[in-house]
């Protein structure tokens, strides 16, 4: 009952002789080649091509200005407008981090510090960029809005130790984030 007999399409003489299709194919491939040389390939514009095909040629051309808003690059720590480091070393990011890339050594803020009421800050904050998978969970879980994924994507190093971002490097990448970032505000 449920058998459907499929008929192979009947080819006419022109299709059987195959040459028409060949010529068509030549025109197709050649038109691609010519478009590529002229930098007019389909999608060349949106992919910011180098003018040859749709390829962006990396070291000369960078993604930087073509990065989408939602791009997730290297995670980094930020300070607020008064220069206070936002991180209170609650270690939530360390616990949530799926590849266990984050390692925090917490420390207490001494009582004579102007920010003594914050009580804690990280003594060391290491993110192993070899392990990091750029999932953004640290950013999502942070109650203090202290860690963000920035758009830095060229994380390179000559040895493993180079690939571990320590606290200094993380603040260097992160910089300051001015104003309250309403990540969990009522609008959302």
């Amino acid at each position: 009952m449920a058998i459907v007999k499929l008929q192979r399409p009947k080819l006419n003489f022109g299709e059987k002789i195959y040459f028409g299709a060949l010529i068509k194919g030549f025109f197709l491939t050649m038109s691609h080649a010519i478009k590529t040389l002229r930098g007019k390939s389909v999608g060349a514009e949106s992919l910011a091509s180098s003018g040859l095909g749709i390829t962006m040629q990396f070291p000369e051309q960078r993604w930087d200005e073509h990065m989408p808003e939602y791009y997730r690059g290297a995670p980094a720590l930020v300070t607020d407008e008064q220069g206070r480091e936002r991180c209170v070393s609650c270690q939530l990011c360390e616990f949530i981090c799926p590849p266990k890339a984050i390692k925090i050594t917490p420390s207490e803020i001494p009582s004579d510090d102007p920010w003594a009421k914050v009580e804690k800050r990280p003594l060391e904050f290491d993110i192993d960029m070899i392990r990091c998978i750029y999932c953004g969970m640290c950013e999502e879980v942070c109650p203090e809005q202290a860690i963000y994924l920035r758009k830095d994507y060229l994380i390179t190093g000559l040895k493993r130790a180079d690939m571990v971002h320590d606290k200094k490097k993380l603040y260097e990448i992160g910089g300051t984030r001015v104003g309250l970032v309403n990540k969990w505000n009522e609008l959302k």
Partner: protein
Amino acid sequence: MPEIIFQIAIIVTKIVILTFMVVLPLVPLSVYFERRFSAIIQDRVGPNRVGIPLTLLGFKKDFHFFGLIQPIADGLKLFLKEDFTPNHVRKAFYWMAPALTVVPALITVCVVPFGSPISIFGHSEKLVIADLDIGPLFIFSVASLSVYGITLAGWSSNSKFPFIGGVRSTAQMISYEIALGLSIIPVLMYYGDLNLSTIVQQQADHGWLLLPLWKNGHLGLPDLNTALFWFPAAIAFLIFTISIFAETNRMPFDLPECETELVGGYHTEYSSMKFAMFFMGEYAAMVIGSALIITLFLGGWSIGFGLDAWVSDLHIGDIYFGGLIHMGCFLTKLLAFILFFILVRWTVPRFRYDQLMKLGWVVFFEAALINVFLAALIVAAPQLKSVIITSGAVLLLIVTAAVIWVAKVSEDTTKVLRA
């Protein structure tokens, strides 16, 4: 005695220059073209980086030369790779096979005329290594030896996929060698000569076989007989070109090494320079195949349009250097045809094996055979009475119809079970 030494010196010079400085560099060049051309067909860039790394020496900019040095880098890489010989292979043949694919292709270079004779101080020298009187036959006989390399590689590898590749190559070679040989018989009948230099010289004088638009140095329409011969010539060109594709294992017919079916075909078990030799053999065969097609059908070194005699006459003092210009023309045509080869590779999908066999045995073999008769009729027409010509034409039509009918009847009409 010095005369002999002089002759030998000239021959050695020709071999060194034509084989090792013209044809062999064409191999990496065609690999480069293959990669760049396929890249632009697929909207990519292709290798454009490898050049002279001047920045390493403290300069501001590298020289890329459009990546033209890429093949050298590839070759170096292949030299540095481990040359691994698996334990299960038949060693002697395994080692012999790569050489057997390269050598025949390079031997066939010797009968290809690269240009018109160069004359220095009254001493005229042809730009062909061996001016044999059996040019195309020599090429066929030697080039068909290269299948031994592929077959031996497949067999000696002692594993399944290479073996299938080798067997396929043999079967393919046998099927297409016939069409290849038959298809150029009209050409040889037309010129009445098997010497490639003479064939090219005739084309330079009387118009290329596929473009007979000048005569004795003047542009002009061909006479009726020549115009009529254009049709068998075109058919011969078509069959010959496609058969050359099959002979060189190029894309629509690259069943001996199809990656999707046989992993890598006959060279699956090869690595390093042995693999590179197969690669080189394949591309050298492509270069020689293109050279042969150009020589037979597209005027060889001839510039055409009645300019050849003028070019041959160019000289500074006693040095006639027109041959070098002709050689440049030949190489230009060669590169253009290699680009055509590449275009075909990236356009036409691979044939199924039974389609390949059918195309060879049922279509091309018969077509080439009928084409021989047609060409014979046209070539002989001026000497024959009109009655004989008419009856010949009728006979030819009947034979053609019969062949087509047989091909149609013998077509496999078994129902496909998959429905």
